């Protein structure tokens, strides 16, 4: 009995607090209502709420009624504790919103506790059942935690790009956007970037650089991976292992020599310079991923092709390549994403705005003269293609990712 009560007290308190913070923050971030959070009151209110839920089980078998009792106690205690202003707002000001938010808050807290105690007799909790209750509660908290830490930055990035700096300085919690200002008003940062900051050209350059990098990388790594996985030659084992080593050399170690030599050769402030560096740094990754795939293809197919009179190159072209198209495509997407996201070399090498890549262009917005929403609009522009590619080919890419352990 004490176990069940202790657990209910702890879970009620934790969920009351978490729900108040998450819901309060979400309501403020999304609607701009200043629903300041009464997190500590909710923490305290969660305790009687959770206890009421459990005792309600003694009174009735109807789960809805149990739930309603728990919610009711939670809400009443919260309202009393906060001096009749459960969300920092007196109940009268925005009645419907207030009541709705309060109900959601109560439902989340009591619901989470109810799910954790689902089908468990709280009076006779042994260690096994208690841990089950705890695991459920932890999982729930885990989902809330991960969703919050991931969504918050991306939401802030997107919404900031639609706002004005002054609004954000005034209330950093208010991410609501004013739709009545029309398309031009809403997208003014984006329009500004494309009109005055040449983002159209940056996108074009980034696309050209990334696609060229993909082709150069594949052109070198497909034959290389084939040789390592299929052909016998002295030093093969050493070679395939050293590819891994190359993979671990940090870019920052390469920057000084490449900067020095490229400066003297006149390659530094040029896209050609980037097109030398990018493929060279992605070839080892690509080769490593591809050779793993080639190794998995049955060599009997190739031998049969050779028997039928194909040359080695003919076999590669007619048998191996068509069979490994999925792997090649996923490697290509990866290399594209690596080149698109690349920041260090673009930042070090490129000085002239005429040849900025997109990431270099976004960095150039990081100055006190450029308002914050422009920088965030730039961040959205550079992120969207990557996320679209990723979501589109997710299953495909995740398999490749775990198979080849892509660096980051």
């Amino acid at each position, binding site marked *: 009995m004490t176990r069940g009560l202790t657990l209910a007290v702890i879970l009620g308190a934790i969920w009351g607090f978490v729900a108040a913070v998450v819901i309060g923050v979400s309501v403020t971030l999304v609607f701009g209502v200043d629903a300041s*959070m009464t997190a500590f009151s909710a923490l305290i209110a969660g305790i009687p709420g959770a206890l009421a839920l459990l005792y309600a089980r003694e009174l009735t078998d109807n789960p809805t009624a149990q739930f309603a009792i728990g919610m009711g106690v939670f809400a009443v205690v919260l309202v009393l504790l906060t001096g009749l202003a459960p969300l920092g707002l007196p109940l009268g000001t925005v009645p419907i919103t207030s009541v709705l938010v309060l109900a959601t808050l109560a439902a989340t807290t009591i619901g989470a506790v109810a799910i954790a105690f689902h089908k468990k007799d709280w009076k006779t909790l042994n260690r096994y059942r208690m841990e089950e209750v705890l695991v459920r509660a932890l999982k729930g908290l885990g989902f809330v935690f991960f969703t919050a830490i991931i969504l918050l*930055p991306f939401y802030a990035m997107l919404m900031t790009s639609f706002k004005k700096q002054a609004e954000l300085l005034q209330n*950093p919690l208010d991410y609501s956007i004013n739709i009545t200002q029309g398309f031009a008003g809403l997208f003014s940062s984006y329009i500004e970037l494309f009109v005055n900051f040449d983002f159209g050209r940056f996108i074009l350059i980034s696309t050209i650089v990334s696609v060229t990098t993909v082709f150069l990388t594949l052109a070198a790594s497909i034959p*290389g991976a084939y040789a390592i996985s299929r052909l016998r030659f*002295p030093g093969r084992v050493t070679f395939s292992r050293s590819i891994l080593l190359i993979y671990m050399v940090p870019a920052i170690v390469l920057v000084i020599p490449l900067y020095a030599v490229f400066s003297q050769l006149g390659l530094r402030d040029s896209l050609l310079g980037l097109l030398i560096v990018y493929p060279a740094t992605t070839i080892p990754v690509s080769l490593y991923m591809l050779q793993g795939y080639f190794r998995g293809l049955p060599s009997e197919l190739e031998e049969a092709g050779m028997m039928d009179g194909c040359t080695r190159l003919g076999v590669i072209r007619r048998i191996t390549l068509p069979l490994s198209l999925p792997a090649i495509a996923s490697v290509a997407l990866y290399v594209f994403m690596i080149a698109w996201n690349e920041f260090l070399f673009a930042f070090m090498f490129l000085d002239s705005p005429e040849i900025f890549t997109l990431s270099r262009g976004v*960095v150039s917005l990081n100055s006190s003269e450029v308002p914050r929403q422009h920088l965030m609009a730039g*961040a959205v522009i*550079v992120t969207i293609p990557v996320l679209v590619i990723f979501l589109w080919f997710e299953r495909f890419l*995740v398999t490749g990712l775990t198979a080849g352990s892509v660096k980051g």
Partner: protein
Amino acid sequence: MAKATAADLERARRRIGPIERREMRLAFGMLSPTVAAVLLVVLIPVLANFWISVKPIELADLRAAKPLVRERVQGEVTKPGDAFEVRYRARSSAPSEAVREVVFTHELPSGVTLTGGDDRCAQTGAVLRCDVGVLEPRARVDFNVTLSVDQAYFDAGAPSLRDTDPEATGKSKNALTSFEFTFENFRKVFDASEFWDVLWVSIVYTIGGTGGALLLGLFAAQLMMVAFPGRGIMRGLFLFPYVSPVIAVAFTWIFLLDPFSGTMNAILTKTGVTDGNINFLGQRGIALWTVIAFEAWRYFPLAFLFILARMQSLSSDLNEAAEMDGATPFQKFWYISLPQLVGIISTLFLLRFIWTFNKFDDIFLLTGGASGTRTLTVNVYEQAFALSNLGAGAAVAVVIFFMLAIFLAFYFKFVPKEEGM
């Protein structure tokens, strides 16, 4: 590894026939683009760091010292026999290096002849050539010559001398290839008391970032083990931080954590968790933990994916048997799941340890290495480009290289073969 190579060679030599030889040649041919690219852009630069690290070389030395020459024409010519008085002024653009064997040439219009002035100048055909010799840094050398004109000059329409520009050439020591060596860079790097701070920050950041990412990844993988509606979407969402460009997420974090108008501070003060605003990225002692949190946030998806893949490939027999024996959920996790994940977790730890140690972009964008977050990698940039001392930057890179060699030795020694990635 060396042993295996020798054995390979031996075997190859023993039974090398025409077919094998052809196969070998084909293999080398197919590998040559990879080898060339890696050699030129990775291996040689890595070695070049050693060279640069023992040279007194500044960022400005990269600009080749170039002699420049300007002309100034005085006097009017109206009839054959008149003369221009021309002053050529040669100077050097180099801040510190002298330029040797400086010569400049100037193509004169037809009908213009050198008739007097500086005897270091001579005319061959239409070209005036002056020998400057050694040009000290920032020095100026003047040449005054008299150029007379004849009828041919007026027949050609009396073109201006300025129609062609004089051109200067010269040789200067290339700071990169000279044989001037110094240990000053290493002395500077190791002497500075901040070096040990930097090293310490690097290690704390690496261990904290790696451990944080692994713990979050392990937790996330536990959440995703059991199927539920929307799991696919959740998994996609969990990977967002990892696939998004670092510049986008880093700037977003900077704004969220802004000490004056950041959302994070607003949330914390409004919920009553903190009293005043926290300068997450600007306060020594806090900033390091913030960048560690960023690192864990950005890279937990990778650990998550690997651990989830391993968990899904494990058989459930053991778990079921333990369940029958009455093991509680936490006991099952601690005594059954976790031991089976030790292999993948230790591999991930070593890999991520090395990559986190190598990380530059994240800290550079978040704090620029300020307020106690300067790691070795950021120090490379700081020395080479912020303080313009390429040699010192390369010296730090050499230190990184040696530490990396130690980590890699560990990696190859301790990573179980079956987990080898």
